[in-house]
């Protein structure tokens, strides 16, 4: 079947352009990229008029927690997949911080099977770097890679023993495996739920200095320099850590970094009167850090923008701030929330989609993230200007813990395609 989407504004993050055009979708790939619709429309089985809306490569959300296995009441592959489709996310890269952790090829195969049965979007799993994410022994990196693991990480747990991490990095290097770490000094951040500063002190909450992130990053970068491994820092969120990242890149280390949309659009003051939906890992930063992270994403120093989707049920959030679970869902709000940066004049659309689609695809060795002939037909069609007030109860995610509940957002997803097949709005057979 051949589909034509015309009368669209095409966002090409590779070329850095934003121009009117049309796309031809055939056999799951982009068969053609055209500056305008062809004369004869009747040779296409399906013709979609985008009505001047924006069409971009689908988002690749790196670091999504689907709570299968273990906590399916929080999120399943079905609900996470639907949330992704609704948010214009065409590939989710999952985290292994489940119960049990995804640390053996057997568990990974279970996850892959569940995902392929239930999710309307592509699911690529990351596997644990150490067994049980306990930081003592490395996992079967080779077998896990064969079973389809795209990267290795202990998610938000820091491997405290540098010797264990150094060996895992060295071993991973021999397989060209990508290692992702959570950059944070474990000692300084122990027990902390906020970033230290006036607000945390006023609220009487245990807090960590932003310097703990730099310490963690510098340690990991030193080990990367020692082992020459391929490395990605899951979230770099502070001004203090950025020079260390820049220096590592300048020296030619194989290093990239991500940041969550929450850290680019919210700050520690948003916690307000102990609002637990704003309790994140790492904690929300001060405004200067947020500004610096936005700047770093715009300049390309930070490569990847993601949601760090972390579903939590109502029970685990309805507790005093210190006791409440951390994390926020983000698949459905990743695009509209990050469009705040575009509407605010901080990023251009091609810059944004470089961080949302192109860079994560490249880093993970995926063919997605591009609007080029022959690329997978993973697309998002959205209305850049459509305003709405988010009601968390309308979200597809099983868990509704979003910090953007009641927020005014601008930019709505009108259609999502994965391998040329429309997955949002939901066709009846999915």
């Amino acid at each position, binding site marked *: 079947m051949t589909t034509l989407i015309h009368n669209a504004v095409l966002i090409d993050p590779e070329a850095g352009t934003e121009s009117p055009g049309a796309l031809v979708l055939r056999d799951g790939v982009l068969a053609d990229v055209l500056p305008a619709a062809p004369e004869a429309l009747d040779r296409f089985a399906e013709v979609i008029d985008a009505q001047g809306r924006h069409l971009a490569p689908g988002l690749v959300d790196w670091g999504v927690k689907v709570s299968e296995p273990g906590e399916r009441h929080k999120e399943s592959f079905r609900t996470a997949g639907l949330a992704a489709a609704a948010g214009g996310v065409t590939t989710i890269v999952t985290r292994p911080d489940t119960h049990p952790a995804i640390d053996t090829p057997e568990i990974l195969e279970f996850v892959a099977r569940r995902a392929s049965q239930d999710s309307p979007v592509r699911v690529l799993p990351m596997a644990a770097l150490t067994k049980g994410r306990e930081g003592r022994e490395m996992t079967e990196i080779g077998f896990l890679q064969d079973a389809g693991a795209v990267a290795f990480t202990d998610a938000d747990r820091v491997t405290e023993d540098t010797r264990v991490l150094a060996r895992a990095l060295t071993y991973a290097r021999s397989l060209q495996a990508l290692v992702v770490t959570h950059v944070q000094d474990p000692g300084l951040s122990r027990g902390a739920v906020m970033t*230290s*500063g*006036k*607000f*945390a*002190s*006023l*609220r*009487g*909450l*245990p*807090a960590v*200095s932003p310097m703990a992130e730099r310490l963690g990053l510098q340690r990991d970068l030193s080990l990367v320099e020692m082992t020459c491994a391929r490395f990605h820092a899951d979230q770099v969120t502070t001004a203090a850590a950025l020079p260390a990242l820049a220096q590592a890149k300048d020296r030619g280390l194989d290093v990239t970094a991500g940041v969550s949309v929450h850290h680019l659009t919210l700050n520690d003051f948003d916690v307000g*009167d*102990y609002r637990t939906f704003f309790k994140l890992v790492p904690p929300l930063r001060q405004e200067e850090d947020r500004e610096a992270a936005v700047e770093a994403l715009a300049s390309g120093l930070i490569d990847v923008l993601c949601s760090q989707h972390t579903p939590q049920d109502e*029970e685990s959030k*309805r*507790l*005093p*701030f*210190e*006791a409440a679970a951390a994390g926020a869902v983000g698949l459905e709000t990743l695009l509209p929330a990050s469009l705040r940066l575009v509407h605010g004049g901080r990023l251009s659309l091609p810059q944004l989609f470089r961080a949302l689609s192109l860079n994560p695809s490249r880093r993970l060795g995926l063919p997605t993230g591009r609007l080029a002939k022959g690329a997978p037909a993973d697309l998002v069609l959205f209305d850049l200007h459509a305003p709405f007030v988010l009601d968390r109860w309308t979200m597809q995610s099983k868990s509704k813990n979003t910090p953007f509940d009641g927020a005014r957002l601008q930019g709505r997803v009108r259609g999502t395609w994965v391998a040329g097949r429309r997955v949002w709005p939901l066709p009846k057979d999915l």
Partner: protein
Amino acid sequence: MPFRQPHLLGIEPLHPQEIATLLDLADTYAERNRKGLPGGDALQGLTQVNMFFEPSTRTQSSFELAGRKLGADVMNMGVAASSVKKGETLIDTALTLNAMRPDLLVVRHPQSGAVDLLSQKVQNCAVLNAGDGRHEHPTQALLDALTIRRAKGRLHRLSIAICGDIAHSRVARSNILLLHKMENRIRLVAPPTLMPPGIDAFGCEVFHDMEEGLKGVDVVMMLRLQKERMDGGFVPSEREYFHRYGLDAEKLAHAAPDAIVMHPGPMNRGVEIDGTLADDINRSVIQTQVEMGVAVRMAAMDLLAQNLRAARGRAALGEA
């Protein structure tokens, strides 16, 4: 200006005039208590529930006495011992409470913000924060303010030193907020490990040396240093702490000649304060603080009960 709050969750939301109103009423209660007169019937027919999720003798008995003096039916729920250990969450506790229909709820909880959370979930009831984590302890700050006002004749343009474990102290936070609202100069004196980060933004002067910090102050407010923070964690040892930061006559000599000494209790004699000094009735107002505690809590509950009754009256009219 009338006291408009439905709850007393902290000093932060209070207007200086509301603080003055509360202290004025507390003053009259203090006089009545001194003369041995009955407290009155402000809380007649109301149920006061004390829930202390953290052990306390002084604050709990002070609230209990204040409630009884005003005619409330007072009940102490032993939460530390019972349902919480069986895994009941704070929200379940709130639901249980709603079914019991208390009028005044006095809560202490080890986690910051827990009392705020509880106040959002209970219905038709005034909540008083008796201390939440490191956040606030408003009645302590109010009783300190009343003590200062009675000793110094005013509660503005005073120079006040708060000394000790400021980082972990809810008493310090509430006092800083209150004394700032009433336009005083605040000096914080502590080793850097016990000073909260970002404190410079609070508009206080920060000192790491007692003698310098106490120079010329009108009030010296000492804080309790908990035992578990003494052994190498935050300060090297008990004796080094007492030597450098414990209040004794020699260090106090740097303060104004008529400076008063305060402590929220319970004291660690020989750790943060010299025992003889604490008992010196010419300088120490520690006993007065305990006395003012009852009066301030009577006033707070009286005002909240008035607001509660008014709100219920409006609701009844609305229904009719």
